[in-house]
């Protein structure tokens, strides 16, 4: 296990180096002059020159890359051109909101996807199976930003049931402010007994989380269906049935337990999708997370912010994939960490 971890960590480091090199080169090779965008549109040439020296842009490219690597490693991810604040602290202050959304979506998708997949597998080849397959394929085919808008039209505008945007009702900021403990509003408001904010936060989280969950629900349902079909045709299932084990137990305990490990392979891909999928959902629902920040950075060529978010995304992706491998090895003894 330790050797496996070490080897995986080593490959991850190589990939991370490559990733940082690509982001670095992208930001330097492009026509837009970072120094010019740093000082703003109306700066004099001398000011641009000065900014170029201050930002180290007059040094040789490889030297700049080395400096960049050293800075990143020591926690200096540069300063956002848009907000003039440190990129790392921008990311830190927005990350909890994004993570809250991600976790909610994953929870919904894991439960809903598994149930749909199992039910479809049990009705294999019948009408319900086809209907559920259409449903889960629809889930992976739907643009999240569009689904979000449609849900807003229906639930916020037509039915008036749920709030369209934000993380919790903005007036609660003054009447019952949330104590910042972790930055996760749901958690912070619950531990401090701030139920007004908690309720409002749940209401606000519902639609974005459902929107974000559409894709992973579809992926998980498809995968669980396929591996359940495999599991249900195995001898141990026939044996369990022959022993008179109740069908519910056969399906939900015996077969599902064996069907889940292969299904976890898609988890990595799903989580990776969620990292960027959340951006779009956040933009639609005005969710104050990383997505909004990234969208602004992308549109204004705020390259330190872009590089920071990209690097964070890649690190997150690599860690997620590593975690999935470990979970899989733990669940399935046949995967011997080769």
């Amino acid at each position, binding site marked *: 296990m330790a050797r496996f971890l070490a080897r995986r960590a080593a490959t991850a480091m190589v990939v991370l180096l490559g990733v940082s090199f690509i982001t670095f080169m992208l930001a330097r090779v492009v026509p837009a002059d970072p120094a010019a965008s740093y000082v703003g549109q109306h700066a004099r040439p001398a000011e641009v020159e000065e900014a170029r020296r201050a930002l180290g842009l007059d040094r040789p490219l490889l030297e700049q890359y080395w400096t960049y690597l050293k800075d990143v490693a020591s926690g200096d991810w540069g300063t956002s051109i848009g907000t003039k604040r440190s990129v790392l602290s921008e990311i830190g202050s927005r990350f909890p909101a994004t993570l809250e959304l991600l976790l909610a979506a994953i929870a919904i998708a894991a439960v809903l996807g598994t149930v749909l997949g199992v039910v479809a597998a049990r009705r294999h080849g019948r009408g319900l199976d086809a209907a559920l*397959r259409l449903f889960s394929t629809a889930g992976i085919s739907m643009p999240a930003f*569009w689904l979000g808008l449609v849900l807003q039209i229906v639930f916020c505008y037509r039915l008036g049931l749920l709030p369209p945007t934000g993380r919790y009702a903005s007036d609660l900021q003054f009447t019952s402010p949330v104590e910042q403990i972790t930055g996760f509003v749901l958690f912070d408001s619950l531990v401090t007994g701030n139920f007004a904010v908690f309720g409002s936060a749940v209401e606000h989280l519902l639609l974005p989380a459902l929107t974000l969950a559409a894709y992973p629900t579809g992926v998980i349902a498809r995968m669980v269906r396929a591996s359940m079909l495999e599991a249900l045709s195995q001898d141990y299932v026939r044996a369990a049935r022959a022993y008179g084990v109740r069908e519910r137990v056969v399906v939900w305990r015996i077969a599902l337990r064996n069907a889940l490990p292969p299904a976890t392979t898609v988890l990595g891909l799903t989580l990776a999708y969620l990292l960027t999928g959340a951006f779009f959902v956040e933009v639609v629902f005005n969710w104050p997370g990383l997505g909004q920040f990234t969208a602004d950075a992308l*549109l204004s060529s705020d390259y330190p912010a872009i590089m920071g978010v990209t690097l964070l995304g890649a690190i997150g992706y690599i860690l997620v994939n590593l975690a999935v491998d470990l979970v899989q090895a733990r669940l399935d003894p046949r995967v011997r960490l080769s």
Partner: protein
Amino acid sequence: MSAELATLPRAAASPAPRSRLRGAWEVFARDRLALVGLAIVVLLVLVAVLAPWIAPDPAQGRGAAAVAQRNLAPSLDHLLGTDPLGRDVLSRVIFGARSALGVALAVVSLAIAIGVPLGLLAGYRGGWVDEAIMRVTDTFLAFPPLLLAMVIVSLLGPSLRNAALALAISWWPWYARLVRGVAASLRERPFVEGARALGLSDAAVMRRHLLPNALGPIVVQATVDVGSVILAAASLAFLGLGAQAPAPDWGLMVFDGRAAIFDHWWYSTFAGLAIFLAVLGFNLVGDALRDALDPREARR
């Protein structure tokens, strides 16, 4: 001479291609969802090709404004309503099919053109060539999907062409990895060794013996990817990183309509519906193709 001889082993590797294709079609046609998907795809292609003839107002479809009739709700005159510039939404959606399909085909072809040769080379040569190509591939795949494309477009400047380029740059590694797997699994097989023993060059072995065997998986992947790329390009456009006004582009239309979504719901809704249906169609066909071309499925 050597070319004629070399065709023999390939024929032996895939006996009676005609009956295999027919079998594949039977598996495909048995799946009702596949036929639904195929119908959507055919419809989409027809709409894209015939856009100037079937759109109620081709000029508005291309971008001409008619401000006197802005923001009209769907009615018999304008089945899907009009947009903030008075353009007929149905015409815009119909012309949008061209943009969507065009970008998707361009991106997938470019990704195949880059990824397939690299994958063949890596899988067939093995050793350090394989190692080098696959590490580069891994690095590109280490970015969450779409993130790399978003970054590239934002740095190159937003336009439909740059969006397509960026998507191709982030898509090719999937083909490299896919084809590498096929090539590596066939490298030691007798028909490949035979071809090599006959004196065929590496390029010829890859082209005549490895590539044909990888075609099935490539076709399946490409079909699904056309859908995924339509979705990705629309997502870029929605962020303002793709097609620019007044181009008829579904993602851009959803973005444009978003500002007044509660007052004029139809604009974003129908454009997004078009994206959804197109992607759904390609996904359904891709799934069925995977089942049909997978010999294990045929026996079920």
